[in-house]
């Protein structure tokens, strides 16, 4: 089979669990050699999508090819070409890190000696050589994740699926995992990762598909998505409820855009619209508020949260075409 241009192609994937429609016609194209983020809230269908693409679940309708093979008819071929790292580290806690990797190597049909050599390479590569002889139960969260990643890399897969790889990790472990993902992508592996965090997708992915209710509702590069979503916002919090109207007026003029007012939290926010960049827009707002004699308790730049991304995307959806 020649090198496919797209490592993952999914068309109209549907999957129903009882009354829940987990996938409602999901389409996805991931160019080979890129990092692609599936971004969405809990229950959006991200994990089901990964389960279908890694042959763990059969789609009710639609079809998908991964690394050039159909996930249903060519399931065995797909399994030889993908790695899966699930939401929770799926390693054997009793066995040592090394025993885990040798076992997984044997299950990938490596010979005994090759499996041992591959285990040692991966332990070295993922910085676990020093802990190779300790049971996985004694590993820190970050170490378990790295062992988990190593187990997903036994055959140097063409496509690696990471389902919420950093959920539940402390910031330091998260940075470690991010570094590993970048290194893997640098080595030519196609990575598909699911995440609830816009920041994570932003940092790692070259392409993002926003998933909601089992479908992709928006896709593009992180920058394209963010600008489509309005990008960064200036946020001002006040002490004095009486200053709310004055502050809103000043901010509207300074930002040159509509201001969202949360009267209860005394919080105002406006999109960054100027061409001079974020810092200039912030300076401008501070100066204008100061000039108008409005005292702010807090003022700063903020990226849109996933909640806002969703609210905005679903708002657009509801406009009749």
């Amino acid at each position: 089979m020649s090198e496919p241009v797209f490592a993952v192609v999914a068309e109209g994937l549907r999957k129903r669990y009882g009354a829940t429609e987990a996938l409602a016609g999901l389409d996805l194209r991931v160019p080979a050699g890129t990092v692609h983020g599936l971004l969405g809230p809990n229950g959006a269908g991200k994990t089901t999508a990964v389960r279908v693409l890694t042959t763990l679940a059969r789609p009710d309708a639609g079809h998908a090819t991964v690394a050039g093979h159909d996930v249903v008819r060519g399931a065995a071929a797909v399994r030889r070409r993908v790695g899966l790292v699930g939401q929770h580290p799926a390693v054997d806690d009793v066995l040592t890190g090394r025993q885990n990797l040798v076992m997984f190597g044997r299950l990938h049909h490596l010979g005994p000696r090759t499996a041992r050599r591959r285990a040692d390479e991966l332990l070295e590569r993922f910085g676990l050589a020093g802990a190779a002889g300790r049971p996985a139960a004694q590993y820190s969260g970050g170490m378990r994740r790295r062992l988990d990643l190593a187990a997903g890399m036994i055959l140097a897969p063409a496509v690696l699926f990471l389902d919420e790889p950093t959920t539940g990790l402390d910031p330091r472990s998260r940075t470690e995992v991010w570094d590993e993902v970048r290194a893997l992508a640098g080595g030519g592996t196609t990575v598909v990762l699911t995440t609830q965090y816009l920041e994570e997708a932003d940092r790692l992915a070259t392409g993002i598909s926003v998933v909601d209710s089992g479908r992709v509702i928006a896709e593009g590069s992180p920058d394209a998505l963010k600008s489509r979503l309005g990008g960064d916002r200036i946020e001002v919090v006040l002490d004095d409820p009486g200053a709310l109207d004055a502050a809103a007026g000043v901010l509207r003029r300074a930002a040159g855009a509509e201001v969202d007012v949360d009267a209860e939290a005394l919080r105002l926010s406006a999109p960054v619209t100027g061409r001079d960049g974020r810092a200039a827009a912030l300076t401008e707002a501070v100066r204008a508020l100061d000039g108008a004699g409005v005292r702010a308790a807090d003022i700063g730049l903020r990226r849109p949260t996933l909640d806002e991304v969703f609210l905005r995307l679903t708002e657009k959806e509801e406009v009749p075409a």
Partner: protein
Amino acid sequence: MTTLSETPIGRLRWAVADSRTLTVRALLHWARRPGDLAVGLLFPVMVVLMMGYVFGGQMDVPGGGGYRAFIVPGMFAMTMVFGVETTFAAIAADAARGVTDRFRAMPAASSAVIVGRGAADLLYSAASLAVMAGCGLLIGWRAHDGAARALAAFGLLLLLRFALVWVGVYLGLLAKGPESVTAVQILVWPIGFLSSALVAPDTMPGWLGAAAEWNPMSATVTACRDLFGAPVPDGGSWAAQHAALMAVAWPLLITAVFFPLAVRRYRALGR
């Protein structure tokens, strides 16, 4: 490798190799946690000693002979039945932690998860039987009718355990997590005690005694007592009089029901 694994012979070869890998995994668990292994093997010994010496003095054994020699075959069979909990817990824990899914996403043969577990559990049960037999010899139990018949008895015990592997696998895949082992205990304990293992069923109220005699475990216990040349309590029911036949028929029936159920449940993980 790719071409080989696509022929039927090649697939079978990998299925055997993958099952062995997962059996070795279970053996490594015991090697890494010898304490768990020792406790697991010594628990039935403790029960034999407790039952034998605490209750033994008050027990009249039908057909003569000591109570301790009477309950040793019963404890053998009871250990086989309680083994369901071991199978259940291991299968349920792997499923809950996502380890089963990881295996399923690998090129490994899908049957290996179940077969590897079954082989490991049978090895463990054989080891338990060896330890208990050693303890039994120390407290007065004997295989009076020779090695061949004694081996046949151990064969029947392992046949029962083999059948119960599929019950454990099925229930383990059905469970939401290893915590539900309590539910399995509620199922397993009446089977263990409502049997001919510890007392002769004809000492129980009529209907209860009949139920005990038809209990699959009782068939194995009675057949083993016979094969060991120990006194066998008189049983009124057809099942008690044809214990050897039932000791083969019950496990085959249980396997015929639960093996397909377990396989179907395992395949259903992909739905």
